[in-house]
């Protein structure tokens, strides 16, 4: 683990560079510890897979001071590691209008349509990081048989709520955006509700399992979710 200077108001806490739930727990726990020290000169943090970017106020702290406080926090970290995540069951419709890349994937992965979906449904995924777009969830880890490259020519418009695959990860687009992930389905749930007290559906550290729904169930759940009456199992 290293503390690297990152600009004149930041420190990059670089853990072992590996996508691993225990390392990610350390990232999220340290972020919580810093948040609990409000008023100590730290402004905000950016948790990622295996690093935490820590921004401080240089009018309050010098770089050596910020580094010393952080080092102290990190020393005690292992004694109170916790995962703030919840266990969520998320509906996904894998039917044709939504599964934009299933044909290509069948060929590349040499798996049937049914097998790809079955493998996607069997694993529990951890939300390692939210980034790239407001609410975009990077989840891992995919079954090795599903690992695939990003599209050579990214789509100019990936529809909101599309579920995609890239490398060893699966992810969900919160809003319509350009993107290169291989799209296999869509969730009827809004990932980003700007006017709500908890505007984002997912948090870093959440454990996610998908279940398959039909096109008509998709419409039903979408209506309920937009009306605010859909109850996501595991959501608090």
């Amino acid at each position, binding site marked *: 683990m290293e503390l690297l200077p990152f600009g004149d108001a930041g420190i990059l806490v670089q853990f072992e*560079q590996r996508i691993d739930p225990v390392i990610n727990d350390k990232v999220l726990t340290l*972020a919580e510890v810093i948040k609990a020290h409000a008023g100590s000169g730290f402004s905000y943090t950016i948790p990622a897979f295996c690093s935490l970017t820590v921004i401080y106020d240089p009018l309050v702290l010098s770089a050596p001071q910020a580094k010393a406080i952080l080092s102290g926090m990190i020393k005690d970290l292992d004694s109170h590691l916790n995962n703030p995540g919840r266990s969520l069951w998320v509906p996904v419709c894998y039917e044709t209008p939504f599964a934009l890349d299933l044909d290509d994937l069948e060929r590349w992965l040499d798996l049937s349509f049914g097998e790809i979906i079955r493998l996607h449904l069997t694993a529990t995924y951890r939300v390692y990081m939210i980034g*790239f777009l407001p609410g975009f969830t990077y989840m891992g880890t995919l079954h090795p048989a599903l690992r695939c490259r990003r599209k050579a020519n990214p789509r100019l418009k990936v529809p909101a709520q599309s579920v995609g695959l890239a490398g060893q990860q699966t992810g969900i687009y919160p*809003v319509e955006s350009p993107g290169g992930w291989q799209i296999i389905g869509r969730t009827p749930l809004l990932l980003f509700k*700007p006017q709500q007290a908890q*505007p984002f559906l997912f948090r870093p550290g959440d454990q996610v399992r998908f279940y398959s729904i039909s096109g008509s169930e998709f419409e039903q759940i979408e209506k309920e979710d937009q009306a605010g009456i859909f109850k996501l199992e595991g959501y608090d």
Partner: protein
Amino acid sequence: MFVKPGLQTLVQDGGRFGFSAFGVPTSGPMDRTSAQIANWLVGNPSNAACLEITMTGPKILVTGECQIALAGADLSATLDGQSIPMYQTIHVKTGSQVGFGRLVKGCRVYLAVRGNFLIPSVLKSKSAMPFAGENTTPESVAKKASHISIQVSDPIEPRRLTLTDSEPLGRVTTRYLKGPEWQQLSSPSQAFFSNETFYLSRQCNRMGYRMLPEIPGYEKSEELISSGIIPGTVQLTNAGQPVILMADAQTTGGYPRIANIIRADLDALGQLKPGDKINFAHTSIKAARDAWIDHHRWVQDHLKT
């Protein structure tokens, strides 16, 4: 009402903080000091919402009496066709039109109005939100015939600020600190970055500036696991093109972070436009902090309430 919206006219306040774990950019003015000055000139809090106007200004019909002020780039502002000065409080009568002309200097001008922009906050900020689109903060993006309602406060005694040349605008040498992946550059590449004069390509916006030329002979190293990026971070694309991340930058990325521009020099970057030139000068973290403290002192001395 916006008779014409201009090239890009956005509402910006102090920015959107507290959602960096959810991939939300911090946003806020590209030239924070100029926005603060404009707000001070009309007696608003320094982080109040104001308009950020880029290169080609809007035409605005003002319904109701108010005080306004302009700071930042010189876009040849007019009131009912008559030229108006920057850096001072201006009284505007109902039915007047605020317009803009030729871009004389800089890139972005801030227009503050005494009072409070009556538009909804999204994630605790009135700043236009990138990525999530115009659907999320539609009222923060000027469009033809769109309106912004303002709750006008009682007028203040007019204020004026005299800037000397050494102050915020027009600096082209920008100071940097070595980034976490600086060591991934070969020494000729490091030298090229430090010695070459770069210019802004046409692909420049509030998210970031793609710079030219590319660093010759850059060999991309192994892929990085996505990690945090902040305004001022300089990333290098696979082709060796430096990209300076700006106010609307995404929160994470996977390209090597070769440098960070120091805070005290970010405002000047916000006033550059495609074709403008930059030299990168290395500095120390101590000098960077001193520069920021000096800047803060300047703001406190000049923008007293």
